């Protein structure tokens, strides 16, 4: 049995403290740390600290925070503490795959009560004008061929492929009494890159929310891999709702999930929540991230910059489309966008559905800077 009192408990409570501060510490890392301490002797506090850094692997940008926690725990000093996301913030995200049953397919869905009324009000609000509809139709047609693709891990036989498919040739040869009749070639299978679309539904984007969601619906339906989130004061995943076939029904289902319509904007925090949830974070890995937002931030603008810095390392490409950038001479003014700008691959025009569609279709075109 392990002794859970005394010095050991003191070490283990440090890992617990780290987890509370949103550092990812796995049990195998705690074990490695304890083994490392034993191994080093330890002669001085520095040994324990270095062992902790090596085995618990704090990310370099949070090293100072890690050291502060370490000092506070082991040396009893109280430095200025930057706390990680609080319980409250972590709850500031909703996932449609965990809220109740599967949305019902079919025509005879009856919504009742005030929920439905709110949904209808949203669904009925200023719906896509004629030329928007044309833009979306064109987008849906063009998307399968023009969505960004990445090279897959598996091979498939293909004429004119990049390498010879020797395995297949051998199998053929078996059938032909050991004679090689044809040269077979193979190439890497390609897969569509996931597109992660983040739609700002806050008050300042009110005029455009509906058109953006209509676009999101076409994207969710048309792409092999796409994930749709809304941000306002919180983060909501609406991918599953938008997979419904009929637009009105899909938008109504989605709008019931989103609890922060036309409210304030805490983009930094909402994006932070996205990154803090491993399940969501994994969706952004290697994906094309498209944010539809004006970047008007109520919260701390530096949080937005930090979140985009992390996204830039996780995602394949990050694009921010703002309706304010209709002018070619546009320079970001809002503090949030200024902070996020260096980490974006592109800050582009999101003023009309036409330009948004064109931008998403061209994701595959150019290489990142």
């Amino acid at each position, binding site marked *: 049995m392990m002794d859970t009192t005394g010095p050991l408990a003191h070490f283990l409570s440090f890992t617990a403290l780290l987890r509370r501060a949103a550092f990812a510490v796995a049990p195998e890392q705690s074990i*490695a740390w304890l083994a490392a301490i034993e191994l080093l002797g330890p002669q001085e506090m520095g040994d324990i600290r270095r062992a902790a850094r090596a085995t618990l692997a704090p990310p370099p940008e949070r090293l100072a925070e890690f050291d502060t926690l370490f000092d506070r725990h082991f040396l009893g000093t109280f430095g200025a503490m930057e706390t990680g996301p609080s319980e409250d913030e972590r709850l500031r995200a909703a996932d449609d795959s965990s809220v109740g049953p599967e949305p019902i397919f079919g025509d005879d869905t009856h919504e009742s009560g005030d929920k439905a009324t709110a949904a209808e009000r949203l669904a009925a609000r200023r719906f896509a004008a004629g030329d928007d509809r044309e833009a979306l139709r064109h987008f849906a047609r063009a998307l399968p061929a023009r969505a960004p693709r990445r*090279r897959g891990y598996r091979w498939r036989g293909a004429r004119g492929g990049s390498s010879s498919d020797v395995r297949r040739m051998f199998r053929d040869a078996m059938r032909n009494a050991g004679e090689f009749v044809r040269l077979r070639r193979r190439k890497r299978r390609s897969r569509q890159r996931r597109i992660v679309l983040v739609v700002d539904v806050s008050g300042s984007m009110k005029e455009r929310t509906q058109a953006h969601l209509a676009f999101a619906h076409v994207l969710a339906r048309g792409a092999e891999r796409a994930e749709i989130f809304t941000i306002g004061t919180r983060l909501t995943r609406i991918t599953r709702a938008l997979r419904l076939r009929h637009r009105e029904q899909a938008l109504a289902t989605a709008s019931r999930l989103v609890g922060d319509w036309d409210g304030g904007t805490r983009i930094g925090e909402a994006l932070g929540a996205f990154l803090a949830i491993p399940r969501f974070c994994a969706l952004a890995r290697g994906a094309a991230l498209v944010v539809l937002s004006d970047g008007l931030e109520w919260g701390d603008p530096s949080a937005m910059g930090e979140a985009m810095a992390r996204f830039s390392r996780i995602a394949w490409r990050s694009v921010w489309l703002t309706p304010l950038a209709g002018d070619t001479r546009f320079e970001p003014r809002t503090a949030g966008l200024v902070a996020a700008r260096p980490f974006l691959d592109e800050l582009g025009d999101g003023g009309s559905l036409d330009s948004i569609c064109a931008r998403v279709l061209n994701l595959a075109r150019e290489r990142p800077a």
Partner: protein
Amino acid sequence: MPVRRSIVGIGSPHELEEALRAAYYLADEGLSTAAYLALALGKPLLLEGAPGVGKTEAAKAIGGVLGRKLLRLQCYEGIDAAAALYEWNFPRQMLALRQENTDGDPVDIYHDEFLIERPMLACLRHPEETVLLIDEIDRSDHEFEAFLLEFLSDFQISIPERGAIRAHERPVVILTSNRTRELHEALRRRCVYHWIEYPSPEREMRIIMMRASGVGERAARAVVAAVGRLRREPLAKHPGIAEAVEWAQAATLLNEQGARWPEAFRRSLGVVLKDEDDFVYVAPKIETILAEAGA
């Protein structure tokens, strides 16, 4: 968790630091502790840092200290198992089968002689003689990272025709990443981690003096100060340690041929800045930078 307290006579981080110095690599305390722990706990060592801080050099030096052969697997976008693990030597298999047809002796075409070992398999088969360096893992695809995860947790791979191959002792594996993208949390978790910073001025100076022959102390000090200053500028590519060493060497060479000191540094600037935009950006400031550095 099996622990090896002492590896080839190295029983503490300090001893490893000494051994690395003998192999012409100056490690700081953090790096030598992390490397020692990785060796002792039998875990892979993950080194991250900006390009040019000496990640690959560290791996080479550790290989040298252990007296083992370094197997280097350079990652790239699209790397797959055939490049990392093994491949069958199909032409040889074919010839053997033809031979079998004429001679009548049965051959096992899945024998070792038909197997082309790639670095990861070679490391599994001879863990006591090799150090596996998986370089710039951030360049590979996510699938390869996932595949690596399996390899790094069990040190076992399976070849369908041959069954599972397992290392009989935990091999020494070093991974490096430039952090152009974030590695998967699960991969970081399995490793002992160290973030290599640019060295402190004093340590960088010792590196230059050790690595570059014939460089005077004054030149080395000036290079360290100037390079440190350049690293604070918003450049596309910051000068690494290798660049600093080369700059000191190049400037010394020019100086020996008769160029005066600040001039020798300025003329050899191409060794440090290898990007036209950076060059243009720094050009107007270089006088002040060199003057401040005491060149």
